[in-house]
């Protein structure tokens, strides 16, 4: 039986079992056989939802200032809304590190790590709208229900810590738009959906509802679960074809173990004063620190959103809007990178930064009801935008691809979202064409029929 057959087998009847489980789970920690030796074991995806402007953050375009207020040198591409003349960046850029790359003042702290960042300036998505672009970034498909990247990876790699969910999503204060669809498991078994946590809370009782029993003692609860398991197994025996029953049985055991393990993992007060100071205050800082604690404990995929809704969506007041958001996220992101290095986790943790798309270098035209009639913001831009990766077997201190002179569209070495996905899978040890799941008579994969590994990313 070759790997491919194994993978196929996974999709037929044994669907509820992770690939790693199938392959015998060589060890409780790591050492899961993959197509290639994995370069990274964990992912922290810093999702700047709403679409941060690349030309105001990491994609330095001196020409932008030159054309400020003037017609763009090339015709404005079609985006969601009408756009006008070029809008210079309201932010100052400066060079950092040995690479000497320019980063704007918005990310001055993160920029201290510039020599570890692999910047992809030529990202490309399909449409200039949030919902389909979020779906594309998270699932590789903008329209249909498909598993998210985190679901694919936890399916492929299994878990390293049975007491914590393998895939965790945090967003302070509510959901990003498209809500739980962003971390859906699609046709993969339910356990590969992310566990969502509203990180605006601080206490573990608030972070995770019902994390502690109140009416039964711990000994009794264990006995209850043992009894439950027995009657559920008996029930399952008569219904051997229903994977949902097994999933639900597992969910109780996971819940039980989460009670102790999660309480500890989410308790940032166990960190030193110095570490707390490093990350700073605020919800984003706390969830970033939690993400490090989770990765440390073997959680495979942690996705952090900037906030509920679509915070980076500055159709107007971009200067103040972006400044406010960057102030929340820059320090914690820089802290995360330092902290991962300090703990020796940097090399095995892939950190991904970016939004569902970028923003136009040209100003959005005033429009009642969408930007309060103002003319100081940027529209969505799927033609070209920047994402960066760090750690986890990526080659830092490099730029991949480029946008045109003002940053409107990717012109060099275009990297489509599907290519990004193929590359992420590659870093985690998978061939994106061979990590498949059979469903409704067809082998599905994250990249569908697309995707190409961006070799330059690999260290």
């Amino acid at each position: 039986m070759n790997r491919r057959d194994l993978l196929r087998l996974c999709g037929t009847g044994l669907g509820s079992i992770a690939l790693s489980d199938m392959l015998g789970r060589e060890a409780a920690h790591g050492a899961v056989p993959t197509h290639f030796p994995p370069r990274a074991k964990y992912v922290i995806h810093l999702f700047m939802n709403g679409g941060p402007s690349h030309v105001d953050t990491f994609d330095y375009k001196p020409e932008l200032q030159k054309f400020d207020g003037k017609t763009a040198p090339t015709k404005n591409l079609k985006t969601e809304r009408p756009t006008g003349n070029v809008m210079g960046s309201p932010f100052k850029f400066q060079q950092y590190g040995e690479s000497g790359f320019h980063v704007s003042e918005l990310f001055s702290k993160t920029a201290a790590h510039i020599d570890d960042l692999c910047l992809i300036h030529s990202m490309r998505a399909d449409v200039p709208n949030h919902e389909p672009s979020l779906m594309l970034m998270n699932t590789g498909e903008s329209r249909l229900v498909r598993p998210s990247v985190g679901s694919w990876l936890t399916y492929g790699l299994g878990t390293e810590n049975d007491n914590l969910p393998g895939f965790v999503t945090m967003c302070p204060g509510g959901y990003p738009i498209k809500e739980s669809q962003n971390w859906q498991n699609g046709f993969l078994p339910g356990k590969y959906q992310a566990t969502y946590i509203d990180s605006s809370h601080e206490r573990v009782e608030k972070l995770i509802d019902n994390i502690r029993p109140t009416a039964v003692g711990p000994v009794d609860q264990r006995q209850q679960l043992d009894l439950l398991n027995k009657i559920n197994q008996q029930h399952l025996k008569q219904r051997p074809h229903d994977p949902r029953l097994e999933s639900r049985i597992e969910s109780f055991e996971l819940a039980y173990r989460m009670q102790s393990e999660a309480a500890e993992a989410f308790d940032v007060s166990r960190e030193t004063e110095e570490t707390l100071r490093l990350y700073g205050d605020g919800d984003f800082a706390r969830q970033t620190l939690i993400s490090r604690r989770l990765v440390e404990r073997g959680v495979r995929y942690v996705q952090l959103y900037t906030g509920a809704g679509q915070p980076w969506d500055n159709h107007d007041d971009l200067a103040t809007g972006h400044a406010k958001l960057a102030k929340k996220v820059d320090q914690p992101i820089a802290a995360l990178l330092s902290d991962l290095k300090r703990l020796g986790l940097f090399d095995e943790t892939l950190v991904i930064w970016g939004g569902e798309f970028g923003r136009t270098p040209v100003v959005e035209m005033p429009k009642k009801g969408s930007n309060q009639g103002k003319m100081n913001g940027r529209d969505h831009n799927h033609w070209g935008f920047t994402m960066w990766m760090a750690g986890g077997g990526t080659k830092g201190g490099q730029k991949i691809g480029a946008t045109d002179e003002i940053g409107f569209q990717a012109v060099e070495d275009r990297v489509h979202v599907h290519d990004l996905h193929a590359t992420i899978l590659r870093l985690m040890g998978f061939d994106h064409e061979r990590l498949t799941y059979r469903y409704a008579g067809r082998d599905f994969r994250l990249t569908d029929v697309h995707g190409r590994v961006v070799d330059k990313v690999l260290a």
Partner: protein
Amino acid sequence: MNISLPSRIAAVGFLIVCATLSVSPIHAVQPSKDELDFFESKIRPLLIDHCYECHSTESGESEGDLLVDSAAAIRRGGAGGPLIGGRDADKTMLMRVIRYDDRNLQMPPDNKLSDESIGLIQRWIEMGAPDPRQENSVETTSSPLDRDPATHWAFVAPERAVMIPDANQGDHDLVDAFAAARATEAQVDLAAEAPGETLVRRLCFDLTGLPPTKQQVDSFVGSDAPEAYTRLVDRLLASPAFGERFGRHWMDVARYADTVGYALGGKERRIKGSDRFRDWTIHAFATDMPYSEMIRHQLAGDRTDPENKSGNLDAMGFLTIGRRFLNRYDTWDDRIDVITRGLQGMTVACARCHDHKFDPIPASDYYSLLGVMQSSSEKADGPSPLMMVDKDPHDTHVLLRGQPGNRGPMAPRQFLTSLRKPDEPKFDDGSGRLQLADRIADPTNPLTARVMVNRIWAQLIGKPLVDSPSDFGFRTEPPAIPEILDDLSADFASHWSVKRLVRRIVMTRIYRQSSTSSDAVQRSDPENRLLTRANTRRRDFESMRDALLMVSGSLDRQMGGEPVEITMSTPVPRRSVYAMIDRQNLPSLFRTFDFASPDAHSPMRYFTTVPQQALYLLNDRQTSELARRASMAIGREAKSSDLDDRIRTAYRQILQRAPESNEIALMREFLVSPVSPLLATADPRSRWSYGIGDVNDDFSVKKFVAFKVFAKGRWQASGVFPSKDANGYVSLGKEGGHPGNSKGQSAVRRWRAPASGTLRVIGQMGHRGEKGDGIQATMLVHGRSIFTEKQVRNNRPFGPLVAQVQEGQFVDFVASPGKDSSYDSFFWRSRIKLTGSDGRVYEADSVKDFSGPIDTDSNKQLDRLAQLVQVLMISNEFAFVD
């Protein structure tokens, strides 16, 4: 067709083999008109539907280096060589891949074409593949608008099926006969009828959302009478709970919520009278209002019941209950969406910015309906708060790219293009809402009945016949057994009685089948597309919660009225359909259990399995309380204190069946072991206390008397506020408080240190009154003052204050009045961080930790029987319905 190969290796192989084949023109002579017609009507739609997505210039995809959007491209072929090499169809690569002859190259990859389609392509090749399409030209005819809607199954009115002659014995309903015939053809065995206990549980779940009562089980299972099933069905159909169950299904379609969503500036979010739409819906289903009438009332209640004499004006909530957006175009869009996806299975909202990419829906269709919406307005002061009325009826322009101000041609108010007759008059009666309703409710409308039947089938059978219940467009495949949907729909359109439809479905053999199946059946039809067995269903959120309430004897069957908040620490006994649905901040409980998003029309519920669901069932105070109540009822019900008797009673009460002997043994073993102690929970709220302090000159507390009364979010001296005695306004709330009349009535917030160590306090305090002489704010650790300061008309941060503290000592935050005790409202927020001598860190926050009286959990500890009951209540058997 997607020629990207499942295996790239195979692709390379093809390339080598086929690359040397020379390409010769197939069609030397001009194709005849008939041949071209054949191509246009049969072949082009097939190519567009199944191949263009991956192989066309328009889509920008050329998988396997193949395009199929011009004659030349087809001749040229792709990486695997030419698709068609001559008129001998069997020898062409095209036929091989679409017939799935080659395991490694099967196109389209997701679904094999129907035999009919494959036959058409074969004929086309045999004709010499006539193809007028020019290369590189813009696909002038690739628009779905150029395709005759009548070539798509869903746009042709359904017809009653004709009974097939050699029907399965005992199949009295056509749909059973068709399913049986198809299963026989595929050599898949039919499941036997489910046992009585299963059927009664299934029927009650489907028709009422509740578990059966003991009487229902006994009278059905105990009866041999052949009409017992029919009697049970009719009784359930007649129960008010049927209305509640189907009403809730409809509320998913109608994206029901009790709030408008986000509202600027703290404006009222509650939709006034939202519950009237919910109650109308429940009533409509309970009284079997014809579906066609329901449609008319929901779209045009202002015409069908203008004075709301029969309550049908409230039905207009269907339009007005949606999210209110800041941009009114978005609000109209939501209404167009709920009408078209909800009632017609058409994704018209996709045509807001441009013609629909896949379906015959021009942008003008969207703007025809927008005109109808714009010609209507809400009327808050009418007979119903949910109503709309006609206002200034007018047509509107198409807005190019959906942008107001970017005007295109006028879009007259009229029905959808693909469903309109050629000479059909435009809407001219007011806004046109009533005419729109009439066109939707017209029995000849091919979609209305199909869409509704498919929804109801999904609710009863567990899976829809058409996989995308709110999108019946060109790309949607017909059901595996089309006759079933068509016959039920044609029947339904002849009477529009939902109850008749439901009755017909639950009377079928298909419905009554057992859910068990053999390995062989599982292998040949894993998804049960051939309907040879029942689908085991997971209880949805409402049904789960209602069932828990019911088996614990807590369910309050009161119907209708104001929505109730159900996420409290004690169980709220009303059925879940009456829960307050806050669209903007839907409590996580709803989301955890996959409740329908109230933000947009919901075609179907998802069912996920996540540990948070298990945590709710294990640890939530509501669940424990229900288990406790159920166990008390069982204690009363059981004839004796005999354990076996209690176990039997518990099984009957919770799972509606008798336990097996091995189950009794298991349960007995559990019951006899002793209860173990509760974990000492470190609830941070419990470290705080709130009271009235008599203070010394240095403001240290001489005497502390805890407040007795908690009302309106604050602790106060007595039930009367302000108190008539010297306590006056003394009180403490989340953010601050007010001292009493003198120093003897200072307001004291007190925190007990959980460990010895170093204390660090920071915060913000102030006095905001316009008048008065302010207050004295003092912080003390074990009676030692670490801070004292007068606060008057200010707002300042304080700290960090650092002090040593021993475990069990108090930290007091004392607010005392000056000479004048009026206008002494103060603001005081403190955050404490205690680093214990062992390095452990404790945090407290006067705002976040603030609470009224805390339940002392020790009183609520579950005894052994209650624990057992809880296990049954959270079991898979309880959560799933066979």
